[in-house]
């Protein structure tokens, strides 16, 4: 089932980053998208953390699916197994970031453990299996999804930084105007539909 080619990689990447952007088209990763993205720097840091978790999780869940779930015919344990893998990975990433960059750790705050409940990560791992990707395509897909997520979150943060100084009606302040902004971004991204 390995359809591996450079053109294939390119299609997977363009699809995940632009055409079927994980956040703006597939609605995966919305919670952190809305929550973290008030500053470009923090958003970028979040994007990097998510990229690492997505890549590692994709590989580990691929192995688990193939050699445990499929082998023993217990596919129904997928949800439980996958989310436990992700939760453990996030713990690991938390510890690493805390050691390597305490500043980043502090600015990400509670959003770091929340990567566990980031539907983008679990969603990606399930999509990998459904698509029947081999290990390499799985990794390419993971990177595409992570880039798509980071792109959306950084762009959004940039816009929100500007919105802070704008004159927004009371009822729309905060969450509502953020959503409408996201809607406009999503609309813009729909323009990529012809690419893939």
């Amino acid at each position, binding site marked *: 089932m390995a*359809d591996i080619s450079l053109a294939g990689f390119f299609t997977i990447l363009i699809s995940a980053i632009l*055409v*079927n952007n994980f956040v703006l088209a597939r609605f995966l990763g919305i919670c952190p998208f809305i929550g973290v993205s008030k500053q470009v720097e923090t958003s970028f840091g979040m994007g990097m953390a998510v990229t690492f978790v997505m890549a590692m999780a994709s590989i580990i869940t691929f192995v688990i699916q193939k050699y445990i779930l499929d082998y023993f015919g217990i596919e129904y344990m997928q949800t*439980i197994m996958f989310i436990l893998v992700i939760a453990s990975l996030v713990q690991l990433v938390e510890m690493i970031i805390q050691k390597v960059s305490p500043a980043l750790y502090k600015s990400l705050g509670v959003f770091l453990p929340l990567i566990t409940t980031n539907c983008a990560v679990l969603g990606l791992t399930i999509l990998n299996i*459904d698509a029947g*990707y081999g290990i390499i*395509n799985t990794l390419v897909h993971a990177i595409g999804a992570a880039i798509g997520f980071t792109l959306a979150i950084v762009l959004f943060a940039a816009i929100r930084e500007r919105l802070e100084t704008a004159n927004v009606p009371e009822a729309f302040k905060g969450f509502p105007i953020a959503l409408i902004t996201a809607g406009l971004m999503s609309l813009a991204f729909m323009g990529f539909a012809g690419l893939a």
Partner: protein
Amino acid sequence: MKETIKLGLILCFITLIAGLILGFVNAMTEPIIQERRLGETYEVIEKFFPETQDVLVNDDLDIDINISDLEENNIINIYASLDGDIIGYLIHSSASGYGGAVEVLTGISLEGEVVGIDILTHTETSGLGDRIEEESYKDQYKGIDATNSLDKDQIDNISGATVSARAVEQSVDRAIEFFIKHLKK
């Protein structure tokens, strides 16, 4: 260290209980799901070959193939529609789409012409990838010559759904290849 092991064991225990409960429910629901899927497939068979009186599946067919052969080529099932004698074949194949496997049922008449295709299952993006279900897209496959390899240039793609449409093409391609190799007279 001892405490970590104890915590790990408790977590394993809970997971084990969960596994047992799920295994039990799975055993009950799985047959229902399989039966319904079979019913849906038979509906499609009758749509492509209205004169169908009987259907043969996989091993019942008198063809020289084995299971690993099928799996390698992403062929899931093979059906033969009979009205006394065989009037056509339907090949259930799959290919990787964007959101998962795209499973296609390709109906091929005895003379080697594609009668039509049906998208059995897919998890493509709604509004974009799921346009492979549109009649205008599927109709392109009607009348295609199945005695020769599929010429992918003759199929128009769908803007915004390249990966999904390609998956359908690949699925049909696999079905046709199988027909040429094993079923063509």
